[in-house]
């Protein structure tokens, strides 16, 4: 594989491209499974093929020559910074998937506390106070203008 030692692999980019290509292929197969009629394939099939061609053109960018600095978004980024990003993404997932089951009040408050901590608020009393006030304000504020109530547990 590594016949040219000067080339590197940008793993994150490779992963992103695999996801995109995977979604495109799965979508094309699902569309073809639904029906082979022209009214179904008219746009999706050519667009999918175009996407796959474009993905092939992007491929060299994943294996840049090592002196190329352009492909290095994580210039000053430490592993710690990246961990915080992933923690925040995980916290947001927790919020999105638990809202309806544990109630907007609990889910929002929990997310606020965790996310504030991840984002660097070290004073715990500030964190808890802000999270509580913000949660209550948001639930009553948004709650009064949306065309349906939010599922709540405590408030």
């Amino acid at each position, binding site marked *: 594989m590594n016949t040219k030692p000067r080339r590197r692999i940008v793993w994150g980019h490779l992963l992103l491209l695999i996801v995109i290509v995977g979604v495109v292929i799965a*979508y094309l197969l699902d569309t073809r499974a639904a029906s082979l009629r*022209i009214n179904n394939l008219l746009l999706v099939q050519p667009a999918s093929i175009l996407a796959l061609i474009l993905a092939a053109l992007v491929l060299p960018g994943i294996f840049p020559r090592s002196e190329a600095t352009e492909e290095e978004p994580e210039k000053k980024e430490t592993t710690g910074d990246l961990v915080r990003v992933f923690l925040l993404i995980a916290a947001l997932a927790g919020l999105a998937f638990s809202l309806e089951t544990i109630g907007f009040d609990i889910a929002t408050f929990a997310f606020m506390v965790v996310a504030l901590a991840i984002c660097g608020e070290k004073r715990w009393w500030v964190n808890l106070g802000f999270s509580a006030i913000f949660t209550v304000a948001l639930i009553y504020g948004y709650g009064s203008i949306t065309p349906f109530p939010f599922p709540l547990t405590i408030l």
Partner: protein
Amino acid sequence: MIEFTSVWGAFALLGSDLNAWLYLLPGLVIGLVFGAMPGISITMAMAFALPATLYMDFLPAIIFLTAIYTGAGFGGSVPAVLMGIPGTSSAVATTFDGYPMARKGQHNQALGIALASSVIGCLMSYLLLLFLIAPVSNVVLRLGPLEMFAVAVWGMLLLGSLAGSHLSRGLLAGVFGVLLGTVGMNTAGFTRGTMGIPWLLDGIPQIPAMMGLLAASQLIGLINTNYLITDESSRKISFSKIVGGVRMALSYPTIIFRGSLIGVIIGAIPGVGSSISNLLSYSETKRNAPDGDTFGQGNPKGVIAAESANSSSEGGAMATMLALGIPGGGATAILLAAFAMHNIVGGPSFIANNKDIVYALIFSNFAQAILLLFVGLGFVYVASYVVRVPLRFLIPSVLVVATFGAYAIEGSAAGPITLWVFSVLGWAMVRYSYPVAAAVVGLLLGGLLEGNLLRTNQISGGDFIGYGLERPWALLIFALMLGSLMLQTLSKRRRRKQTEREAQANAASEAS
């Protein structure tokens, strides 16, 4: 054209109940606040106010509702500029340059520009409405799928200019967006890519996906930054700079005029409206600007183009509603319902028989636009304090607000889940230099492209060219599009030659 007896009738009507004007201010404020909340659509704001108008007289009811309409139209631009959140699809192009301006510390100017462009766009659209209402209504219904497809393709041209330095990545993002935009049941009833999830039948929820791609992804990436604006001295809230932005917008009358024209025309087409007009206006402005390369990095012209087009779409939608009695979107559907509650039914005979009401509506909207300038100044002044909030508070708060908005617009966890999936995708795309905006444009236009391509195929029996030759309006749109592209290439070449010549001249003069 303009009938002066009706104009006097309109003034008499507007003056008949001065108390009606008391509803102007609350209407605008409600609109601004609702519009500025991500996920709360103009339709929702108006649906809430509708029951209250049941017990009002006709004039105050209409003034109240249209004031909400106008206010909400601008309200969506505030989060678009300050946080990069397009609360509605009509504010997407505003984020392209408005948000970079805010990040550079030009938040005051950006908001002032957005406000002024909106106000002028709104004024212009109603002015155009006075003259265009009859011809527009004649054409609108004749627009078939091929014409709509042409409009969608025009919007897709934006992909080329959004791509930036990595052309293949930009196009891949755009095509990927288009594909995602066709998920669900297509117009012929075929269901694809839903993975058995019922809510995907209607496609991927657009607004949560956009908020995720454009805003949440940015916020996640900002986690290691302390403030939205890095330079502390730029974090000031300055009223004079907001006013400076207003003045700056005034110095680009061509862009505003073009935006307003695009807005009125596209806004008049039922079912297309402001979500496309802001993209078209942005794309045309960028293509024609000598400094087009700096669009997307905080060029004020981008904000002017987007804002003048999305606010003028209101006038276009109103033209269709008044002339044909058909709603172009949810907001005009509510207005029609309010008309009906007072025994006034829209349609061709409505304009003929009620010219005074039509003019009264137009004049009251002039008043709204002007009042919006002042109310809006106060509103953006307060709203811009957001830039002073440390990011460690702002990131979690805005993520939660976006989640609530996503829930509000979908009515179920489908919204927040979509938001999450697309914010992760957006974060990864930003990290590896894919333009997320291209994916958003694709996502917005995918359904429109497919539906109308498909209907063109159905209606023509597969004979696209033969059918196309029978459609003068489609040919005209395609011709305009090609013309615009060619003009751009020509002017680019001319500019390049000019710089070369200047360089040569300089070299020559130095040599001598």
